C-alpha cells in the first residue's frame, strides 16, 4: 500500500511539473463575453447566446473540482492537473500521448456522470487564412471528439464548434501566443 501511495505521489508530482497551468489562473482568457447582435433597425436580431464555462457540478476551467472521484485512488484536487484544453502543434491536428491522457481523463469524468455533455471548441493561431483556419480548428475539435468516443462517450453527448483564428486566448504575434492559441477547449456542462 505504501509503495502504491508513493508511486501515486510521484505521479502527481510528475504531472504537476509537466502541466503548464498555474493554480488560481484567471479564466478571463477563456471566457467569452456575452453575445449580442445589434443590427440595423427593423431587422430581427437572432437569439443571444452565452457560453457557460462551469455550472452545477461540472468542472470549471480554473481547475477547481467539485470533489467527485471515480475511485478511491483519485484525490479531490486532481482536476487541477489537467486543464480542459488540448494544445496542438503548428498546422497539426493530432493527439500525442500527453494530450490523449487529458482527453481520456475527461472522457472518464463524463462516463461517471451520465447526463454531462461537452462542447469542443476548436481554435488556431493567427497565421494562415481565416477560413482555412476555421476548418483546421474543426479538425482539431473532431480529433478530440473521436478520442472521447473511443473512450466510451457517446456521440450524442459531444458538440463541436470551431472559431478558427477568431478567438485567440493570448494576444500577440509570437511563438508563445501562437502556441497557446492552437487549442481545443473542453467545455463540460
Amino acid at each position, binding site marked *: 500500500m505504501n509503495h502504491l501511495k508513493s508511486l501515486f505521489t510521484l505521479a502527481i508530482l510528475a504531472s504537476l511539473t509537466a502541466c503548464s497551468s498555474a493554480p488560481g489562473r484567471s479564466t478571463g482568457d477563456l471566457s467569452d463575453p456575452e453575445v449580442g447582435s445589434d443590427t440595423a433597425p427593423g431587422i430581427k436580431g437572432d437569439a443571444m447566446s452565452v457560453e457557460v464555462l462551469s455550472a452545477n457540478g461540472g468542472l470549471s476551467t480554473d481547475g477547481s473540482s467539485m470533489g467527485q472521484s471515480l475511485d478511491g485512488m483519485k484525490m479531490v484536487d486532481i482536476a487541477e492537473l489537467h486543464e480542459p484544453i488540448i494544445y496542438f502543434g503548428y498546422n497539426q491536428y493530432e493527439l500525442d500521448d500527453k494530450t490523449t491522457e487529458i482527453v481520456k481523463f475527461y472522457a472518464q469524468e463524463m462516463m461517471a456522470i451520465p447526463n454531462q455533455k461537452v462542447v469542443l471548441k476548436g481554435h488556431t493561431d493567427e*497565421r494562415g487564412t481565416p477560413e482555412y483556419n476555421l476548418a483546421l480548428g474543426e479538425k482539431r475539435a473532431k480529433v478530440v471528439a473521436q478520442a472521447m468516443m473511443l473512450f466510451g462517450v457517446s456521440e450524442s453527448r459531444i458538440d463541436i464548434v470551431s472559431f478558427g483564428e477568431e478567438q485567440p486566448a493570448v494576444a500577440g504575434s509570437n511563438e508563445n501566443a501562437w502556441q497557446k492559441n492552437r487549442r481545443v477547449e473542453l467545455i463540460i456542462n
Partner: protein
Amino acid sequence: MTSVNFKFVTFFQRIAQIRRLLLLSFTAFSMSLFAASAMAELTIEISEGYDNAIPIAIVPFGYEVQSSMAPASSQSPVDLAQIIAADLRRSGRFSPLSKSQLPALPTEVDTLDYSQWRALDLDNLLMGKIIDEGNGFYQIEMRFMDVLRKNQVIGKRWNHIPRSNLRQIAHQMSDLIYKELTGVRGAFNTQISYVTLRKSEGKRHYTLEVADSDGFNPQPILKSNQPIMSPSWSPDGKKLAYVSFENGRSQIFVQSLDGKYRENIAKFKGINGAPAWSPDGTKLAMTLSKGGSADIYIMELKTGKLQQLTRKYSIETEAAWAANGQSLFFNSDRRGKPQVFQVFLDTGEINRVTYDGNYNANPEISPDGRYLSVVHGKDGFHIGLLDLYTNEFRVLTDTFLDESPTFSPNGEMILYAMNRNGKGQLAVVAIDGKTSQTLKVKDGEVREPAWGPYLNH
C-alpha cells in the same frame, strides 16, 4: 505567351489581354483610396508613390445660386475639386497642382486662357460649376480640357442631385478623367466592406462596415460581440453575404445594405463559411462541413437547393468564382498543405492551379480572369499574384502576416489585410507591386476587406 489554358480564355478576355499588353507601359492603376481627413474615422498613410506622376490642374468649382432662390449659404457644401484631386493623387498616377499654384480659377470655356496653363507644362485641366437649385438639390457641370489642343475633352452636366450624392458625383468625375487619360475604367466610385474589431474592458466588439472607396461615410452594417468574417458583395452591390457567430457558431447571413432584408441562409451542422456570390447573383458558393469535412457547395439562393462540388476528407474552402461563372477556384490541402485548385461546373473536373511554394490559399480572381491573387506562405504570409496567361508568379508584399486579398473592380489594385505591430490594418498594392497605402481605425483593428463592384453600371 505560353501555356494558356483555353478553357477560360473567352473572346473578351483576349481583348482585355491585348489591351493590357498595350497598356503595360502605363502601368496604370486606378485606386483612389482612403482620404486622410478628420471626418473619416479611418486614417490613411501613403508609404510610396510613383516617380512619374502626371501633373494635372483641378480647379475649384465655381458656386452659383439660382437667381430665384435666396442663398442658403455662401459656398458649396462639398469641395468637389478637392475630392477629385485627392482621388487622382492617391492613385499615385497624377500630381494635381495645389491651389496656390493655380494662376486663375476659370469656370467657363470663354474665360479660359490656355496659354496660362500651357506655361505650367501640363496637358489637362478640370473646371466646373456647382449650382444651388435650392431645397438641397444641385446642378453640377464638369469641363475637362486639353490645354495643348485647346479643346474640351469631356463635358458633363448632372441635374437635380441631392446634397447626399455630391461626393459620389465627384468620384464619377474622377472615374471619367481616369478612363480618359489611362484607357482603364476608374474604380473611384466604389465601396469597400471590412470588419473592425475593438476591445474594451476585456470584451471584443466586431462591426461589419461599408465605406466609400476613399474611406468616407463608414456605415455599420452589423455590430456583434461575436466574430464576423468573410464579407462578400452581391454583383449588384446591394447585398452582403457574411459569416456571423452571433448564434455561437459559424453561420452565413445575407443582408441588404438598405436594411430591409436579412436572412440566415446557412446554419447547417458544422462549419458554414466562406460565402462567395456567383457573377450572375443567383447562387452562393460556400464551405460546409455537414458532410463530415469542409467541402465546397453551391446554394441556389431562390430555392436553397445545394450542390456539392467536392467530396474529400481534406479541407476544401475559400471558393472564388471565375468571371464567367463556369468554374470556381478554391483552396484544398488534399496534397498536404493548402494549394489552389479549379473545379469546372459542367464536367466536375478538378485541376491544380498553384505550384509555387508549398502554401497558397485564399484565391481571388481578377475581373478579367487573368490574375489569381493568393495568400502565399513562405517566410511569413504575403500576397502573391499568379498570371494565369503566362504562369508567372510574383510576391507583391513583404510584410509578414498578410491575408484576405480582394481586387478592385477594374482589376488594377488589390486591397488586403496586413498585420503591423500586432494590429490589423488594410493596405492597397497595385498589380505591378509598386504603390502601398494603408488604412487603419483608431483603437482597433481592421480585417477581412472586400472591394465592392462598380456602382451604377
